[in-house]
C-alpha cells in the first residue's frame, strides 16, 4: 500500500521556488520533478512576493540565501502565526547536519507548520544537491569561459609575433613561453601585453 500513497502525497505537495535566477530555478525544478514532485511553481519576480505567495499558498518555499527578500518572507512568518496557514522555517535541532548542509549550499526552506518533517527532508535534500550541482556547473562554466578567453588572446599574440618578426607558429609560441618563464608571469599575461602594445602602436 506504501508507494501509491507516497506518490500521491508527493504530487499534491505544492512547492514554490523563489529565485530571480531562472537557470538555477530550472535545475532545482528538474531535480524535484525527478524525485516525483509535480506541483512546482517558480517565482522570479520579487515585487509583490508576499501577495504572490499568499495567493499560491505553497506547502514548501525554497529560497536562495543570497536573496535579500528572505527578510520579507520572515515578516510573513511573524504575522502568519495569526492567520490560518502559518509558515515556519524548517529548522530543528535533530536535523542539524541537514540544516548546516542547506546553509552551506545556500538554500533556505520554509514549510507550512504542522507538516511532517519526513515529508520535507526529501525536498530539502534534493534542493541542496541541486544547489550544489548548480554552483559547480557555474564555476566550471566560468573556468571554461576564462580558459577560452585566454586561448583567444594567446592566438592573437602569436599571430602578431609571427607577422612582426617573421616567425613560425611554434617559434612565436616558444618565444612567449620563454619570456613568461624568465619574467615569472603567466603566458596569458605576456600575450595580453603583446596585444595591448600592438593596439597602442597600430
Amino acid at each position, binding site marked *: 500500500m506504501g508507494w501509491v500513497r507516497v506518490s500521491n502525497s508527493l504530487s499534491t505537495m505544492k512547492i514554490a521556488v523563489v529565485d530571480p535566477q531562472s537557470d538555477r530555478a530550472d535545475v532545482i525544478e528538474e531535480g524535484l520533478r525527478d524525485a516525483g514532485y509535480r506541483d512546482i511553481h517558480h517565482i522570479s519576480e520579487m515585487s509583490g512576493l508576499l501577495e504572490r505567495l499568499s495567493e499560491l499558498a505553497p506547502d514548501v518555499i525554497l529560497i536562495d540565501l543570497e536573496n535579500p527578500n528572505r527578510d520579507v518572507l*520572515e515578516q510573513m512568518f511573524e*504575522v502568519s502565526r495569526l492567520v490560518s496557514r502559518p509558515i515556519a522555517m524548517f529548522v530543528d535541532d535533530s536535523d542539524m547536519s541537514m540544516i548546516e548542509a542547506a*546553509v552551506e549550499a545556500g538554500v533556505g526552506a520554509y514549510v507550512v507548520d504542522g507538516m511532517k518533517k519526513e515529508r520535507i527532508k526529501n525536498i530539502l535534500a534534493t534542493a541542496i544537491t541541486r544547489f550544489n550541482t548548480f554552483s559547480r556547473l557555474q564555476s566550471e562554466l566560468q573556468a571554461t569561459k576564462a580558459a577560452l578567453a585566454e586561448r583567444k588572446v594567446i592566438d592573437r599574440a602569436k599571430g602578431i609575433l609571427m607577422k612582426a618578426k617573421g616567425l613560425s607558429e611554434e617559434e612565436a609560441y616558444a618565444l612567449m613561453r620563454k619570456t613568461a618563464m624568465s619574467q615569472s608571469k603567466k603566458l596569458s599575461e605576456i600575450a595580453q601585453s603583446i596585444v595591448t602594445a600592438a593596439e597602442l602602436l597600430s
Partner: protein
Amino acid sequence: MSRHHVRIGFIPLVDAAVLVAARELDFAAAEGVELELCRETSWSNVRDKVAFGLFEGAHMLAPMPIAMRLGLGSVAHEAVAPFVLNVNGNAISVSRELAGIMGALRAPENGPKSGSAALQALEVMAAGLRELHRKRGAPLTFGVPFPFSCHAYELRHCLAHAGLQTGREVEIVVVPPPLMVDALRAGKLDGFCVGEPWNSVAVDAELAEIVLPTARVWQFGAEKVLGLRQEWAESNQETLFALLRALHKAALWADRAENHVTLSEILAREPYLDLPAEIIERSLNGHLTLAPDGRQGLFEDFLVLQRKAATFPWRSYALWIYAQMVRAGQVEHSPARLAAVRAAFRPDLYREALGPAGVDLPGASEKVEGALAVETPVASSGGKMFLGPDAFFDGTVFDPNDLEDYLAGAAPTGRGRLAT
C-alpha cells in the same frame, strides 16, 4: 601571540563602522585576532549563519539575540550580546508626496505652536498621514528592515502615540534596506524607518525627505550589537575578550570627529558599503541633508559609537526591546521568557573583558531608560562616566523593575500586514 580567527557577519550599513575599523585599522590584529568580516544580504541569513556555526558572531539588530532566544521567527537558539556596536543612527523618511502634504501643514499659520522639536515633527507627520490616508481611502505603507528591529518598534511607538493604528491607517512591511529606494520609486512605500546610508541615498535620489531621526524619538537607544553563539562565547573566552578589547579601541577611534573622514573613506570601499564616502560621512557627523532641495539638519547624537558608555550592553535595553515585542503582539509576556531575555545581553562578559583593560565601567548593569533630561554624571569604576540625555520624545520612562506596570500602561502598537 597565537592568532585567533573569528568570522563575523555584517550587513552593509554605516553602523558596521566599529567592526570595519577594528579590522582595517588593525585594532583586532593588535589583540591577536584575525577578524574576517563576511558581508551578508539579509538579517535572516545573519541569524542562521550564527545559529548554525558558519559565523562565530555578527553585526546584529539589537532585538535579534532576544528574538533568537525566544524562538521568534525561527527555532530558539542561545545567542548573547556582550557589546553594543552603536546607539541611534536610524531615521524616519517619507515620500515626496507625503512630504508635500506635510509641508503645507507645517506652514506657520497651520503648524504646531508648542512642544519639543520631535513632538512637533511627529504631529505634522501624523497629520500628513491622516490627510493622505483620507485622500487615498486605503492604508499607507511604511517599510522597516526586519520584524524584530528597533526601527519597527520606534516607528510603532510613534504611530501609537499619534493615535494611528497599524492595519488601519498604516501598514508596516519589511523591505530590505538596499531595496527601500526602489520600493519608494515604484510607489510601493509612503515612508520608512531605516539606518544610514539609506535615508540619505533616498534624499539624493530626490525620492524622500528625512523627517525624524530616531535619536529624537529616543535620545539614546541601542541599535546594533555584537551577537554571538553562547556556546562559542563560553568556550572561547580568551578570543572573545581579545575581540572585545579590539572593538573597544576601534569604537574609541571611530567615535572621534577627526577620524570621520578616514572612516567614511574606508566604509565607502567595495567590500563594505560600496557607496560615495560623502553620503556615509553625513551620518557619522549627524549633519544630514534632509530634502532634495538641500535643506540641512544637524542632530546631536545622531549616531553614537562609543561616548557616554554607548558600547555597554545595559540589560534594560534588552528589557525595553522585549516590552516592545509584547506591545507589538510578537510575543506574550511570561516569567520564563523574561528570564531568557535577561540572559541575552551580557554586561558580565563586557566587565570581565574590559575591566582589566582599565575601561571605565558603570556601577549598575541596568538603568531606568528615559530618565535623564541632560548629560548626568553616574557612579563608575573610573569615576568619569557621564550618561544621557536619554529621554523618549513623549516623556515615557521605562523602569525595568516595573515591566508589568509599563506593559499594563502602554498602548498596544498593533500588528503587521496579513494579521487582520
